[in-house]
């Protein structure tokens, strides 16, 4: 089986994209922690439910950013293929 250089780089780019998406672990943990604390906060103070929910969503969306950077790197590696040019 002969593999040309460009094909090899494309395959390695796909592996790199998969590795870049390991970045999804961090935001997952962070969002889970945020949601858990929000749940306990609602349990303690059910009256402040709407405030807690909006704060939680804001914090989760900010925590998501790092995961999205990983996603962007993965997408650029797969669809734009800067290394194979």
């Amino acid at each position, binding site marked *: 089986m002969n593999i040309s250089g460009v094909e090899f780089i494309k395959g390695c780019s796909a592996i790199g994209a998969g590795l870049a998406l390991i970045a999804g672990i961090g935001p997952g943990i962070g969002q889970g922690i945020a949601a858990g604390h929000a749940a306990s906060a609602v349990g303690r103070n059910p009256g402040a439910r709407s405030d807690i929910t*909006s704060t939680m969503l*804001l914090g989760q969306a900010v925590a998501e*950013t790092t995961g*999205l950077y990983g996603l*962007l790197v993965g997408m650029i590696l797969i*669809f734009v293929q800067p290394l194979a040019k």
Partner: protein
Amino acid sequence: MMNPVLLANEPDFMIKGIFSYQLFGQTVWITTTHVCTLIVMILLLTFAFCVNRKLKKTDPYDAPPMLVNIAEFIMEFLNNMVTGVMGKNAAKFVNYISTIAIFILISNISGLLGLRPPTADYGVTLPLGIISFCLITYNKFKWQKPVGVLKGLMEPWPFWLPINLIGDFAVPVSLSLRLFANILSGTVMMALYYSLLPFFVKIGIPSALHVYFDLFSGAIQTYVFCMLTMTYISDAIGET
């Protein structure tokens, strides 16, 4: 552009050029993003004109008609949102925040109309981030005076200055990248779903995905963009 992996039919979510023209020796493309942005703008303008015409004819002592009710509801919601975060400075910024909120929201959920969302193009979100950044910086210089800004940059210790500068200039990048990546991931996910799977799972099931990726994610990201802009502006104004 696409690489030939094992796809039944190629997923189709890239920005496509429609026609190009020469401007100062550069090739400039009119892309799907421009067309979709124009459609969104026409939708918003049509709504605004309808409300305006209706509003002029409405008798203020009578029960408001449906369209005026909807417009009042939207306006009241945005006003309450801005007032809740910015307090007494809200009056100056409610116009800007409402404008970007409505534009981003309609752009994000325009995937439901079969358009490619304009916010899934970095060329749309980066200007939004830069406009917000200019507003934040202007307010910082206006309210804290240059001396206060310099003092804020050297916050814990003077040699912290470069790190604080990087932190300041990361604001537009992170604002725009967050919006862009969220909407792009939704678009890519929907395109992959529609192109990779056999036809019988494309009936009914995608509606749930559309609700999550277009409606929920789009609304949340709109809220986050406006909320962060407001928080940064409030920070810039400081305790006055």
